[in-house]
């Protein structure tokens, strides 16, 4: 680790141009829905995220990889303004969603969060029935009609492949489902409010291989309609599903590019080392 760090510092001195994360071959991409501009985050005066600039390509899967403590999760949570309630955290820079700065002055946070579904590390089913879990989002945003809710619930549960498994017991508490089913339920719950972006914070790390495969397959289907940003700890997962990869190290975005480029031809020495597994 120390050696790598040294090498990293060396490259910093000799080759500062490559460290910055300028748009890498983004010309062929469609207009980015989600854009991070000069984002800096400090937690209790510790600089966690340093000048992050990132454009998340639309309708594809972007994986954020990097060693533990490099700021992946912090970055993901800033996209959803989940740092709002923590007084220790200061944020500067901007995150643009639909060309609107979510850290802007007159932005309503509920409106921002509605555009993004979040999938946490462990499934977080709400203390209510399966049906109510999916109906919760539409309900708080004003859908009261039971028939409409039923249609939404059915569609979303079908979308995550859970409908056949639970259609006879929609009224049972969601906590009774297996952990993989719970995670798919959480995904359905997030989809029910029609987000444009799906954020996943190591969404499969608590699941067994079969459940993981199911979730990954879902992501691959969902990317036709949603922009998906996943923080992942397993490189193999990124290899399996990522269209684009962002590599972070010590709070900086080292490299961003298509999965092909990053995995077969990384530009940066650090990325090379991380991908080949010489540190993790």
């Amino acid at each position: 680790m120390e050696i790598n760090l040294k090498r990293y510092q060396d490259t910093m001195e000799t080759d500062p141009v490559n460290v910055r994360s300028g748009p890498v071959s983004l010309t062929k991409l469609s207009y980015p829905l989600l854009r991070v501009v000069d984002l800096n985050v400090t937690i209790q005066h510790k600089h966690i995220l340093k000048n992050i600039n990132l454009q998340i390509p639309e309708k594809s899967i972007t994986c954020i990889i990097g060693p533990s403590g490099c700021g992946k999760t912090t970055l993901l949570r800033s996209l959803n303004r989940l740092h709002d309630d923590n007084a220790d955290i200061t944020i500067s820079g901007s995150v643009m969603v639909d060309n609107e700065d979510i850290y802007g002055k007159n932005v309503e946070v509920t409106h921002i969060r509605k555009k993004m579904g979040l999938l946490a590390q462990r499934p977080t089913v709400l203390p209510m029935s399966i049906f109510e879990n999916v109906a919760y989002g539409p309900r708080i945003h004003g859908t009261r009609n039971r028939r409409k809710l039923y249609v939404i619930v059915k569609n979303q549960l079908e979308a995550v492949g859970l409908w056949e498994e639970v259609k006879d017991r929609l009224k049972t508490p969601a906590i009774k489902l297996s952990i993989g089913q719970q995670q798919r339920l959480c995904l359905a719950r997030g989809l029910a409010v029609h987000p444009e972006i799906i954020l996943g914070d190591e969404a499969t790390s608590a699941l067994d291989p079969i459940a993981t495969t199911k979730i990954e397959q879902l992501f691959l289907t969902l990317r036709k309609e949603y922009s998906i940003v996943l923080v992942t700890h397993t490189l193999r997962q990124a290899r399996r599903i990522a269209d684009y990869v962002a590599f972070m190290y010590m709070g900086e975005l080292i490299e961003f590019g298509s999965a092909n480029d990053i995995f077969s031809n990384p530009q940066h020495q650090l990325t090379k080392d991380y991908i080949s597994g010489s540190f993790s």
Partner: protein
Amino acid sequence: MRKLEEQIMKIVMLMASGIIIFILGFILWKIISKGLPSLNWDMVSKTPSGGFYLGKEGGILNAIMGSLMLIFCSVVISIFLSLPVALYINFILNRKSFASGVIRFAFDIMFGIPSIVYGAFGFMIMVFLGLQASLLGGIIAVSLLIMPIMVRSIDEVAGQVPRDLLEAPLSLGATRFEMVKIAARQITPGITTAILLSVGRGIGDAATVMLTAGFTDSIPTSLLQPAATLPLAIFFQLSSPVEEVQNRAYSAALILTIIILILSFSTRYVSRKISKSKI
């Protein structure tokens, strides 16, 4: 060596549990053996007639009803005051923030205040308002007594709610209030326990009601009338020189224990029903 250590630990734990169970059993045996013979239907269905405390007939229905009314109103009042406090210091304020700490500390102090002080305080308020000893005064004092218990025990379970669960509704675009509702739902079993604890404490406390609710031989028909309570009924009967009356004190204690048991089981049953269907 390590095996010996384990053996010793096992024995210590067993002994500690044994002592506690023995003490509990001893108290129960004492209450039952002394109280059961003088427990009859009159005890729970009649108010005291003249000379009851000298061994004449009658019952302690006045105290049973007084205690139940008192504890019911106090629990309702203090749940409405303490649930918002507990939710506020956990979910609106940061749980570890300075302000939460101050509020928590204040309730810790309230927790430690002896019940007679609440009685005296309630008495002072009553004098200030120009009330005489009354059910209302008792309710105020007992509410004050059980509020810190509720706040602190709800606070304990609220601290167990994982951050992820709170962020789930938020990330769906819920407001803070909607998030708090989810949290409250999650800790329903904890809230039930808090109610149970405070019922147990409030219904059995003599010192608070002595100065505030007073004592009477009839069932109160309004909030401004004095009310008898079971702990005081036990106290007065025990201090009687007549042995028969003393034994009645034990049956009053038995009734109090049974009431607490019934309340405890039924609350637990109801909360399990709720959590089965909703959570």
